[in-house]
Protein backbone atom coordinates (compact mmCIF):
# COMPACT_ATOMS: atom_id res chain seq x y z
CA UNK A 1 0.00 0.00 0.00
CA UNK A 2 2.94 2.36 0.68
CA UNK A 3 4.03 2.22 -2.97
CA UNK A 4 0.45 2.70 -4.17
CA UNK A 5 -0.05 5.82 -2.06
CA UNK A 6 3.42 7.09 -2.97
CA UNK A 7 2.53 6.83 -6.68
CA UNK A 8 -0.84 8.58 -6.28
CA UNK A 9 0.60 11.32 -4.06
CA UNK A 10 3.54 11.84 -6.47
CA UNK A 11 1.09 12.19 -9.40
CA UNK A 12 -0.87 14.94 -7.66
CA UNK A 13 2.22 16.68 -6.34
CA UNK A 14 3.50 16.93 -9.94
CA UNK A 15 0.16 18.24 -11.24
CA UNK A 16 -0.34 20.70 -8.36
CA UNK A 17 3.23 22.00 -8.74
CA UNK A 18 2.57 22.67 -12.42
CA UNK A 19 -0.77 24.35 -11.64
CA UNK A 20 1.06 26.55 -9.11
CA UNK A 21 3.59 27.47 -11.82
CA UNK A 22 0.69 28.43 -14.13
CA UNK A 23 -1.00 30.47 -11.39
CA UNK A 24 2.27 32.37 -10.75
CA UNK A 25 2.52 33.05 -14.51
CA UNK A 26 -1.00 34.51 -14.52
CA UNK A 27 -0.28 36.63 -11.41
CA UNK A 28 2.94 38.02 -12.96
CA UNK A 29 1.10 38.84 -16.18
CA UNK A 30 -1.71 40.56 -14.27
CA UNK A 31 0.87 42.78 -12.50
CA UNK A 32 2.48 43.68 -15.84
CA UNK A 33 -0.93 44.56 -17.35
CA UNK A 34 -1.67 46.82 -14.34
CA UNK A 35 1.71 48.57 -14.75
CA UNK A 36 1.02 49.13 -18.46
CA UNK A 37 -2.38 50.61 -17.61
CA UNK A 38 -0.82 52.95 -15.05
CA UNK A 39 1.78 54.16 -17.59
CA UNK A 40 -1.03 55.19 -19.95
Amino acid at each position, binding site marked *: *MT*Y*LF*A*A*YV*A*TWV*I*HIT*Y*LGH*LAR*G*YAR*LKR*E*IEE*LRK*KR
Partner: protein
Amino acid sequence: MKRAFPILAILTAGLLSYGLYGALVQAPTEQTMGDVQRIFYYHVPSAWTAFCLFFVNLVASIVYLWQRNPKADALALASAEVGVVFCTVVLVTGPIWARPVWGIWWTWDLRLTLTLVLWLIYVSYLMLRRFSSSGQTPVMAAVLAVLGALDVPLVYFSIWFFRTQHPQPVIGGGGSIDPRMLHVLLINWLAFMCFAVLVCWSRYHLEILRRQVDETQALESLLAAGRPR
Protein backbone atom coordinates in the same frame (compact mmCIF):
# COMPACT_ATOMS: atom_id res chain seq x y z
CA MET B 1 -14.32 27.99 -24.38
CA LYS B 2 -14.70 30.61 -21.61
CA ARG B 3 -18.29 29.51 -20.95
CA ALA B 4 -17.47 25.81 -21.23
CA PHE B 5 -14.46 26.09 -18.88
CA PRO B 6 -16.35 25.97 -15.52
CA ILE B 7 -18.60 23.17 -16.78
CA LEU B 8 -15.59 21.16 -17.95
CA ALA B 9 -13.82 21.89 -14.64
CA ILE B 10 -16.76 20.51 -12.64
CA LEU B 11 -17.03 17.49 -14.96
CA THR B 12 -13.28 16.87 -14.64
CA ALA B 13 -13.38 17.10 -10.83
CA GLY B 14 -16.26 14.59 -10.80
CA LEU B 15 -14.50 12.22 -13.20
CA LEU B 16 -11.20 12.44 -11.27
CA SER B 17 -12.99 11.68 -7.99
CA TYR B 18 -14.92 8.79 -9.55
CA GLY B 19 -11.72 7.53 -11.19
CA LEU B 20 -9.88 7.61 -7.85
CA TYR B 21 -12.76 5.79 -6.15
CA GLY B 22 -12.77 3.22 -8.96
CA ALA B 23 -9.00 2.71 -8.75
CA LEU B 24 -8.89 2.31 -4.97
CA VAL B 25 -12.25 0.63 -4.24
CA GLN B 26 -14.18 -0.53 -7.30
CA ALA B 27 -11.46 -2.33 -9.29
CA PRO B 28 -10.73 -5.88 -8.15
CA THR B 29 -7.34 -6.63 -6.57
CA GLU B 30 -4.93 -8.25 -9.01
CA GLN B 31 -3.99 -11.76 -7.83
CA THR B 32 -0.20 -11.76 -8.25
CA MET B 33 0.77 -8.11 -7.66
CA GLY B 34 -1.90 -7.17 -5.13
CA ASP B 35 -2.73 -3.51 -4.44
CA VAL B 36 0.42 -2.15 -6.06
CA GLN B 37 -1.13 -3.02 -9.46
CA ARG B 38 -3.59 -0.14 -8.85
CA ILE B 39 -0.77 2.24 -9.82
CA PHE B 40 -1.65 1.10 -13.36
CA TYR B 41 -4.87 3.23 -13.22
CA TYR B 42 -2.77 6.40 -13.02
CA HIS B 43 0.35 5.29 -14.91
CA VAL B 44 -1.31 4.04 -18.13
CA PRO B 45 -3.88 6.87 -18.58
CA SER B 46 -1.09 9.41 -17.94
CA ALA B 47 0.99 7.79 -20.70
CA TRP B 48 -1.93 7.79 -23.16
CA THR B 49 -2.72 11.43 -22.32
CA ALA B 50 0.93 12.41 -22.84
CA PHE B 51 0.90 10.68 -26.26
CA CYS B 52 -2.29 12.59 -27.23
CA LEU B 53 -0.72 15.90 -26.16
CA PHE B 54 2.45 15.19 -28.14
CA PHE B 55 0.22 14.40 -31.13
CA VAL B 56 -1.50 17.80 -30.71
CA ASN B 57 1.99 19.34 -30.53
CA LEU B 58 2.92 17.59 -33.80
CA VAL B 59 -0.20 18.78 -35.64
CA ALA B 60 0.14 22.35 -34.30
CA SER B 61 3.84 22.40 -35.27
CA ILE B 62 3.04 21.24 -38.83
CA VAL B 63 0.31 23.91 -39.08
CA TYR B 64 2.80 26.52 -37.84
CA LEU B 65 5.48 25.44 -40.35
CA TRP B 66 2.89 25.55 -43.12
CA GLN B 67 0.98 28.73 -42.31
CA ARG B 68 3.19 30.57 -39.74
CA ASN B 69 0.10 30.91 -37.58
CA PRO B 70 1.15 32.24 -34.10
CA LYS B 71 -1.90 30.62 -32.47
CA ALA B 72 -0.72 27.21 -33.73
CA ASP B 73 2.71 27.97 -32.26
CA ALA B 74 1.14 28.87 -28.89
CA LEU B 75 -0.90 25.64 -28.95
CA ALA B 76 2.24 23.63 -29.78
CA LEU B 77 4.03 25.15 -26.78
CA ALA B 78 1.07 24.58 -24.42
CA SER B 79 0.57 20.95 -25.49
CA ALA B 80 4.29 20.15 -25.22
CA GLU B 81 4.50 21.63 -21.72
CA VAL B 82 1.43 19.77 -20.41
CA GLY B 83 2.63 16.62 -22.24
CA VAL B 84 5.95 16.81 -20.38
CA VAL B 85 4.04 17.05 -17.08
CA PHE B 86 2.08 13.87 -17.90
CA CYS B 87 5.23 12.14 -19.17
CA THR B 88 6.92 13.04 -15.84
CA VAL B 89 4.04 11.33 -14.02
CA VAL B 90 4.66 8.22 -16.16
CA LEU B 91 8.40 8.24 -15.39
CA VAL B 92 7.78 8.68 -11.66
CA THR B 93 4.92 6.21 -11.15
CA GLY B 94 6.58 3.52 -13.31
CA PRO B 95 9.61 3.03 -11.01
CA ILE B 96 7.36 3.21 -7.91
CA TRP B 97 5.44 0.25 -9.39
CA ALA B 98 8.63 -1.53 -10.55
CA ARG B 99 10.37 -1.50 -7.14
CA PRO B 100 7.98 -3.95 -5.38
CA VAL B 101 7.16 -5.96 -8.54
CA TRP B 102 10.56 -6.26 -10.27
CA GLY B 103 12.71 -5.57 -7.21
CA ILE B 104 14.43 -2.65 -8.96
CA TRP B 105 13.51 0.99 -9.55
CA TRP B 106 14.76 1.17 -13.12
CA THR B 107 16.16 -1.01 -15.88
CA TRP B 108 17.48 0.06 -19.29
CA ASP B 109 14.66 -1.82 -20.99
CA LEU B 110 13.65 -0.62 -24.49
CA ARG B 111 10.23 0.77 -23.45
CA LEU B 112 11.62 2.57 -20.41
CA THR B 113 14.63 3.97 -22.25
CA LEU B 114 12.54 5.21 -25.18
CA THR B 115 10.10 6.89 -22.77
CA LEU B 116 13.00 8.64 -21.03
CA VAL B 117 14.33 9.73 -24.47
CA LEU B 118 10.84 11.04 -25.35
CA TRP B 119 10.76 13.08 -22.13
CA LEU B 120 14.27 14.44 -22.84
CA ILE B 121 13.28 15.43 -26.40
CA TYR B 122 10.32 17.48 -25.18
CA VAL B 123 12.28 18.97 -22.27
CA SER B 124 14.88 20.05 -24.90
CA TYR B 125 12.01 21.52 -26.94
CA LEU B 126 10.84 23.57 -23.94
CA MET B 127 14.40 24.68 -23.10
CA LEU B 128 14.93 25.77 -26.70
CA ARG B 129 11.77 27.86 -26.49
CA ARG B 130 12.69 29.26 -23.08
CA PHE B 131 16.32 30.21 -23.65
CA SER B 132 16.71 30.92 -27.39
CA SER B 133 16.21 34.59 -28.30
CA SER B 134 16.47 34.04 -32.04
CA GLY B 135 13.54 35.15 -34.18
CA GLN B 136 13.66 31.68 -35.76
CA THR B 137 13.01 29.89 -32.44
CA PRO B 138 9.39 28.90 -33.23
CA VAL B 139 10.52 27.41 -36.58
CA MET B 140 13.41 25.49 -34.98
CA ALA B 141 11.11 24.29 -32.19
CA ALA B 142 8.47 23.15 -34.70
CA VAL B 143 11.09 21.16 -36.65
CA LEU B 144 12.32 19.58 -33.39
CA ALA B 145 8.70 18.76 -32.47
CA VAL B 146 8.08 17.02 -35.81
CA LEU B 147 11.28 14.95 -35.42
CA GLY B 148 10.61 14.32 -31.70
CA ALA B 149 7.12 13.00 -32.43
CA LEU B 150 8.72 10.08 -34.30
CA ASP B 151 9.63 8.67 -30.88
CA VAL B 152 5.96 8.40 -29.80
CA PRO B 153 5.07 5.40 -32.03
CA LEU B 154 8.45 3.83 -31.14
CA VAL B 155 7.54 4.04 -27.43
CA TYR B 156 4.01 2.74 -28.02
CA PHE B 157 4.90 -0.16 -30.30
CA SER B 158 8.18 -1.15 -28.60
CA ILE B 159 6.34 -3.72 -26.45
CA TRP B 160 4.48 -5.09 -29.48
CA PHE B 161 7.51 -5.85 -31.62
CA PHE B 162 10.27 -6.47 -29.07
CA ARG B 163 10.50 -8.71 -26.04
CA THR B 164 10.85 -6.28 -23.14
CA GLN B 165 10.57 -6.46 -19.38
CA HIS B 166 7.69 -3.98 -19.46
CA PRO B 167 4.21 -5.61 -19.23
CA GLN B 168 2.49 -6.33 -22.55
CA PRO B 169 -0.24 -3.98 -23.85
CA VAL B 170 -3.60 -4.33 -22.07
CA ILE B 171 -5.67 -3.34 -25.10
CA GLY B 172 -5.19 -4.67 -28.62
CA GLY B 173 -2.03 -6.60 -27.87
CA GLY B 174 -3.52 -10.05 -27.35
CA GLY B 175 -3.64 -9.63 -23.56
CA SER B 176 -6.82 -9.84 -21.52
CA ILE B 177 -8.15 -7.60 -18.76
CA ASP B 178 -11.03 -7.89 -16.30
CA PRO B 179 -13.94 -5.72 -17.61
CA ARG B 180 -14.14 -3.91 -14.23
CA MET B 181 -10.44 -3.05 -14.47
CA LEU B 182 -10.91 -1.86 -18.06
CA HIS B 183 -13.85 0.32 -16.99
CA VAL B 184 -11.78 2.01 -14.25
CA LEU B 185 -8.83 2.41 -16.63
CA LEU B 186 -11.01 4.12 -19.27
CA ILE B 187 -12.72 6.38 -16.70
CA ASN B 188 -9.32 7.52 -15.46
CA TRP B 189 -8.14 8.11 -19.02
CA LEU B 190 -11.24 10.22 -19.73
CA ALA B 191 -10.68 12.14 -16.47
CA PHE B 192 -7.01 12.81 -17.29
CA MET B 193 -7.90 13.85 -20.85
CA CYS B 194 -10.47 16.38 -19.54
CA PHE B 195 -7.90 17.62 -17.01
CA ALA B 196 -5.28 17.91 -19.77
CA VAL B 197 -7.70 19.92 -21.97
CA LEU B 198 -8.36 22.34 -19.08
CA VAL B 199 -4.67 22.80 -18.21
CA CYS B 200 -3.63 23.02 -21.87
CA TRP B 201 -6.28 25.66 -22.56
CA SER B 202 -5.12 27.67 -19.53
CA ARG B 203 -1.50 27.46 -20.69
CA TYR B 204 -2.50 28.42 -24.26
CA HIS B 205 -4.49 31.41 -22.98
CA LEU B 206 -1.56 32.48 -20.78
CA GLU B 207 0.80 32.28 -23.77
CA ILE B 208 -1.51 34.37 -25.99
CA LEU B 209 -1.83 37.02 -23.23
CA ARG B 210 1.96 36.92 -22.61
CA ARG B 211 2.63 37.68 -26.29
CA GLN B 212 0.10 40.54 -26.32
CA VAL B 213 1.70 42.08 -23.22
CA ASP B 214 5.20 41.68 -24.70
CA GLU B 215 4.08 43.40 -27.92
CA THR B 216 2.45 46.25 -25.96
CA GLN B 217 5.58 46.68 -23.80
CA ALA B 218 7.78 46.79 -26.91
CA LEU B 219 5.46 49.39 -28.47
CA GLU B 220 5.46 51.46 -25.26
CA SER B 221 9.28 51.39 -25.19
CA LEU B 222 9.42 52.55 -28.81
CA LEU B 223 6.95 55.36 -28.12
CA ALA B 224 8.87 56.40 -24.98
CA ALA B 225 12.15 56.46 -26.95
CA GLY B 226 10.52 58.61 -29.64
CA ARG B 227 9.10 61.23 -27.22
CA PRO B 228 11.01 64.56 -26.89
CA ARG B 229 12.75 65.00 -23.51
